[in-house]
């Protein structure tokens, strides 16, 4: 709980900073039945990070980590765009739907692969997912032949750029957030994931199907990355195998950590991850609107992240909590040795 406050504090601080720099920061206008405004932009641009961070949260809760999500983003983008671009009817809705389905199906397979390496072969997660992290972009390059593929398909475009009052991307990510929350709280999944993350051996002996659970979270993470990939590429109607989802795994991991979920696994917080993702995206946006050079963006991000994480560390928190010692003289009393 305590940790959530730090994430919330960071977010509020960033928002205040924005209002100071741009007084119209919170204003939202309505145009053609769509809502526009800086806050909405932040939410929209942060949607892919939030999605991936949700998957990452569950993976991290089981003591794992998934470095391959960025590569999966690129693959999802490449496969969908390649399918649409080379199909006989590149503008139709059905082409887009089939393309997206194929691409998500592939992501599912990629998730199964990661899960297989971690849950069955028991390779350390960081190593296991490194395989796909490096190979994945190569696969995406192969699919696109190293080119940036552009598509012109209204249905596809709507995933990342469409509106239903709010940008569709926001609605999708919020829907997934709600889905995960329900799936973990209303079933026993949350408890079992945490148990596996805190003590895998004790969980095994208590009969928890840790293998299935670990497998499930990697598949879910890959699917989240797939959907994020569709959002990112459809927003620009193009697939760039080199840059789509580049470093997004880092943003996602940071979002999870800022949200107070420990990389050591165990207890996790979806609310925390939501806050963390918002902090990361607000930060990125702030840097742009404040006119800070993009080269410095990363440094700036790093500073904020370091500060938040420092404040969350037990040592620093202990400093804040240390109370002055009570005088002890009056509690002294004579020793009595019973005999």
């Amino acid at each position, binding site marked *: 709980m305590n940790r959530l406050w730090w994430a919330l504090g960071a977010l509020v601080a960033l928002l205040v900073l924005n209002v100071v720099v741009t007084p119209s920061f919170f204003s939202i206008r309505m145009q053609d039945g769509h809502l526009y405004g800086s806050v909405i932009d932040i939410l929209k641009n942060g949607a892919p990070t939030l999605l991936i961070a949700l998957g990452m949260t569950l993976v991290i809760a089981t003591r794992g980590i998934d470095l391959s999500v960025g590569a999966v983003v690129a693959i999802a983008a490449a496969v969908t765009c390649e399918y649409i671009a080379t199909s006989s009817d590149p503008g139709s809705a059905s082409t887009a739907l089939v393309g997206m389905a194929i691409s998500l199906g592939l992501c599912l397979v990629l998730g199964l692969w990661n899960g297989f390496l971690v849950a069955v072969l028991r390779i350390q997660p960081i190593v296991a997912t490194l395989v796909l992290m490096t190979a994945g972009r190569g696969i995406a390059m192969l699919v696109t032949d190293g080119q940036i593929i552009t598509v012109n398909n209204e249905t596809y475009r709507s995933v990342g750029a469409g509106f239903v009052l709010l940008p569709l991307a926001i609605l999708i990510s919020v829907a997934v957030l709600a889905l995960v929350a329900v799936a973990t709280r*209303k079933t026993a999944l949350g408890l079992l994931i945490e148990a596996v993350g805190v003590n895998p051996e004790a969980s*095994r002996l*208590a009969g928890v199907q840790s293998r299935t659970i670990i497998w499930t979270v990697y598949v879910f993470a890959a699917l989240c990355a797939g959907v994020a990939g569709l959002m990112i590429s459809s927003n620009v109607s193009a697939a760039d195998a080199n840059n789509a989802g580049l470093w997004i795994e880092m943003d996602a991991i940071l979002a999870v950590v800022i949200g107070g979920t420990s990389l050591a696994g165990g207890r996790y917080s979806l609310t925390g991850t939501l806050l963390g993702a918002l902090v990361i995206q607000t930060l990125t946006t702030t840097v742009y609107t404040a006119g800070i050079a993009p080269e410095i963006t990363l440094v700036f991000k790093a500073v904020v992240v370091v500060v938040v994480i420092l404040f969350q560390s037990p040592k620093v928190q202990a400093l804040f909590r240390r109370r002055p010692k009570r005088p002890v003289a009056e509690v002294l009393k004579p020793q009595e040795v019973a005999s």
Partner: protein
Amino acid sequence: MTEPVVDMRGISVEFPGVKALQGVDFRLFPGEVHALMGENGAGKSTLIKALTGVHKPTGLIRLRGEEVSFHGPGQAQDAGISTVYQEVNLCGNLTVAENILLGREPRRFGRIDGRATRRRAAELLERMGLAIDPGSVLADHPIAVQQLVAIARAVAVECQVLILDEPTSSLDAGEVAELFRIMRVLRDEGVAILFVSHFLEQVYEISDRMTVLRNGRLVGEYRTAELSRLDLVSAMLGRELSVLEELEQQTHPVDERAVLLRATGLGRKGAVEPFDLEVRAGEVVGLAGLLGSGRTELARLLFGADKADSGTLEFDGKPLHLRGPRQAISAGIGFCSEDRKAEGLVADLSVRDNLVLALQASRGWTRPLSKRTKDELVEKYVAMLDIRPATPDTPIRNLSGGNQQKVLLARWLVTKPKLLVLDEPTRGIDVGAKAQIQKLVAELAAEGVAVVFISAELEEVVRVSDRVVVLRDRRKVAELRGTDVDEVMAHIAGGRAAA
């Protein structure tokens, strides 16, 4: 009288919602073995941690007359206080030798000298009379050996104060005797030793004085020779103990009951040789044997915690192929591991979650237990086993060792098993609660539950069991009915004394 080496005055430690210690005074003199006594949750471990800087107490601590306040166990160690905590905290993935000398390895050209480390550790282990390979990986050893290694580590350094928090909780009589020999040597050299144990015999054998705590408060400081057991127990509990009346030896007429579990030629290379075993419904079968005799290994095979590589199992009249614990659980078998920390506790989760974990896992994640059901179960078992504090939302890591053990026991009781395999279920449990648990085992058996019961304490095994299976050198060597401690001892020792 000489000056106390440790003098603690008015020590209080408070956790959110729990006053673990309130104004406790404690003195430890050079050249004495001092027993710290009290029920589970009385505050013994907390007092130790307050001294070694794990917790920040209020109050005054003097070490050799000087006021000190440690900011962590490392500083206490440097000041000459060597501690073995209740939960073994060593590095499982390092070797025994590395664990013993961790942080003070012999160096050569600035680098750790592996060979010298092993040699030094081997010398130490030999001096303690322990036959443990210093090059072996610590986690591969049973908890008792890990405990011995932790003790070896503590006595490897020169210290004026040695603190042992329940060092004997999973040791056999032989190791205990060896430990006491070392403790006496150190005591005679002037080391002050603080000793915690729930075994009254041990306390009376080794200690010179004792301090009794109850509910976080000091009851008194006594000379062991001047305090009778009955007075000690009532000092600890604050009342007379009625449950302590010896449980009568249990022998129910179980022969006519159906055979619940039948193992034929079950075995696993390097763990336990193929054995035959029958357990009937409502029967308590005790497993006795020295440390490393294969008693834990045998128990693990019955539950599928380890996979058998030979033999067959039959349960409830049907063949049972165990690929892991899940099949065992769904067949109706429960298993409480001896290694509470590594194989039992899910430390960060609440008492409630820990208590329902096995039941929930067997239902699968799609069929969650309702909040109401959970609360009812928790309430029932917390009351039944007298788990304290009775706050289901507390993370289990914050409970005292004995109370953690009770929660783990409850974890299996809620699954309503047909067969319960209990490996050292009374480890770290106080006198009163131990009698309670033994009674519970008898009640379960009366309800028709079969129990396989392991304990390092022979008296306990003999008392609760209808039948005792003796293991020696990883082999089942005898099966005794209506037996006594001497007979079991004779078989354990190798049949020399038996005839």
